[in-house]
């Protein structure tokens, strides 16, 4: 038991929690924004993979790290545009379109990577983001050292969660987005263009997903390999439900999942005789349990996955 307490009280664990949570925060917020407007975006897994690849590639080709993030965001926006064109303008099934975008974006990232980066024994690397120490914050007990181990995109993710919560619940645009996700006909009748809102939300949301992917190659690691997103996109989709479509809770959910993950990693090293695969499973099992507890009474946006066609009820 004291081993467990030691792990929980260690700065290293909490630093890892924030690091592991960062791509999930970006992904979850991106998916949440799309869904608040009524569009499920299962393109997330592929978009994150592509963001990881293209962000890394940009830096590998000589761009600076922030430009790498920006390039990733733009690539996400392009895939978002594709998904929006298929689901909003053409009104196609959001599931099928999203899975299509994921397959397309993943394959395209492997292809471009192979095309532009010569095959070698050890993967090529870049110089990733360095940890950032914010004066004032860094001096806080416990929290200070935890935060000082983080890179700038992690700070960005935390601020983004707060910003998105504010935007969704406190601004006219946020209300227009929510109304579009609940009842696009009502939005239209009040002079809001639901098509435009959905396009905007899907494009911006997809850009956030891609930034989440780029964090993996520009901060968490320093190289790209095709399977590195490892289901983080799917976890994000589940976290949106867990969060009941609220950005604050999405942040909490991402941190909780990251906690399970970081915790099991450390537990592996101190507990003998248990196959490590069992530890690997725990965060996913606990996520399912948490989902069952938290999401049963979630208020799903009423128009989620319903294509909007003008003049049709």
């Amino acid at each position: 038991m004291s081993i467990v307490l030691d792990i929980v009280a260690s700065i290293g664990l909490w630093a890892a929690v924030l690091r592991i949570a960062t791509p999930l925060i970006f992904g979850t917020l991106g998916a949440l924004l799309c869904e608040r407007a009524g569009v499920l975006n299962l393109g997330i897994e592929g978009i994150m993979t592509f963001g990881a690849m293209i962000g890394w590639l940009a830096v590998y080709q000589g761009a600076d790290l922030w430009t790498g993030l920006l390039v990733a965001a733009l690539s996400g926006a392009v895939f978002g545009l594709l998904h929006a064109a298929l689901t909003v303008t053409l009104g196609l099934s959001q599931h099928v379109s999203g899975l299509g975008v994921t397959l397309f974006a993943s394959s395209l990232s492997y292809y471009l990577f192979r095309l532009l980066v010569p095959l070698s024994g050890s993967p090529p690397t870049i110089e990733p983001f360095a940890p950032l120490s914010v004066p004032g914050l860094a001096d806080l007990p416990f929290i200070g050292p935890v935060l000082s181990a983080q890179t700038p995109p992690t700070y960005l993710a935390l601020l983004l969660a707060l910003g998105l919560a504010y935007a969704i619940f406190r601004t006219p645009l946020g209300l227009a987005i929510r109304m579009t996700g609940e009842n696009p006909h009502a939005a239209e009748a009040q002079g809001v263009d639901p098509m435009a809102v959905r396009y905007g939300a899907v494009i911006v949301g997809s850009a956030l997903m891609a930034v989440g992917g780029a964090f993996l190659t520009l901060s968490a690691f320093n190289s790209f390999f095709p399977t590195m997103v490892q289901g983080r996109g799917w976890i994000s989709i589940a976290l949106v439900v867990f969060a009941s479509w609220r950005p604050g809770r999405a942040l909490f959910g991402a941190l909780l999942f990251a906690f399970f993950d970081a915790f099991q990693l450390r537990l592996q090293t101190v507990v003998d005789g248990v196959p490590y695969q069992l530890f690997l499973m725990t965060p996913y099992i606990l996520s399912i349990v948490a989902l069952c507890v938290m999401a049963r009474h979630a208020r799903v946006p009423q128009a989620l996955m319903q294509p909007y066609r003008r003049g049709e009820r």
Partner: protein
Amino acid sequence: MTETVLEIDRVSKSFGGNKANDAISLTLGRGEIVALLGENGAGKTTLMSILFGHYVPDEGHIRVAGVDLPPGRPRAAIHAGIGMVHQHFSLAPNLTVLENVMTGTEKLWSWRSQTGRARAKLKALAERFGLVVDPDARLGDLSVGEQQRVEILKALYNDARILILDEPTAVLTNLEAETLFATLKEMARQGLSLIFISHKLDEVMAAADRVVVLRGGKLVAERRAGETSKAELAELMVGHRVARPVREAHERGAPVLEAAAVSVRVDGVDRLREISFRLHAGEILGIIGVSGNGQAALAGLLSGTLLRSSGDILLYGEGVGDLSVAETVASGIGRIPEDRTREGAIGEMAVWENAVLERIDEPRFSRRGLVNRSAAVAFADAIVRSFDVRGGGPLTRTRLLSGGNMQKLILGRNLAEHPRILIAAQPARGLDEGAVAAVHARILDARKAGTAVLLISEDLDEVIALADRIQAIVGGRLSPPVSADEVDARALGLMMAGAWKKEAA
């Protein structure tokens, strides 16, 4: 005449060769209430959709206070002071009242929603017109009547001077409808102008200053409410004389369905409390009451979807245990559910599929797990013919039928099999005059043929015209039965208010 605020000038609109509106002209004065009367499909809703900018007219103009309104732009209509209250509310149940009202009213790209100011404005409007509602309540938690208030407030919040209401009472109880019309009159008194669409003659006569009748896309008549009668309007609307059929004296048979002190609990709430009734073959027993007093539980109990918590049910003189839906069908109980689109028929399926769905297990319609499609289609075709279902055949998707025709299909599906008992919940709700008469005639035919009919309704006229005996349902309790020949509308009104309880005590 007073100052004209709205002028519809020879507006026409066609859908695929079908003229929904044919050169309709209409004016609306300040402080005036105009009723737009017509059967379903007469073009009322099309006209109002053009007015509100949902459709672009093929020809014609709309002028608000003398200024042309650009066609096909809801925003321009809102800006010109036109507010629309749709029959199916344009509201988001997960958002609060205030959020529903505020959507789209502020500049989209501002840093902060001015909720404080909006709340104050909403409260002021609510007080001015007597539309009380909590701004911070979640919309989905409100009753239908309250939700409609929010729809009206939404229009007023956008500074509407002209309010269009599309069949505003279709979803309301009688009491709510009365409150609504009092509110509308108060609005007109304060200088607003209103158009409401309806096919109910009573409310048109009661609430409108002027009545405009549409038929087949044309404006056929315009009358001042004081200078016309229900009979005249009914004739104008349908194009020929219609009379709702009335029951004739008729010998009733033996009791077929009896309930003795039956209670039903749903989710810990008592929906029915020790109700008793006795339904005879060849009679219609009317259960009258304001909706929400246990009618849904009663219909559910007798259709096999709800189980009783205590009491006894006798079917054909014998006690029965809990009946499943399939057993009720098998024992000759026909059912007309209250909500035909949700429980009565499956819109995306073809007419023939809906016609045989509850009998699909019978050998004539399926054998060894395979559907005998030709037999099923023939069965549906027979219903379509004998019950005069118009607007499609057995292969039509059911969603495409009008409400009246869908109801005829449901009625036909039940009556074609000569049920011994028919549970009819609000069978004529939302139907136009012609369809109401047809449905009533069919129910009376069934009675004549010896079917026992339990008619659950909140329409006094309907119950008085059809039922032999009447019991009121209030708060899950049933009054003792009264003979329909011995009561009038006033006495029934008292019963619906629960007046019998005092006598009993």
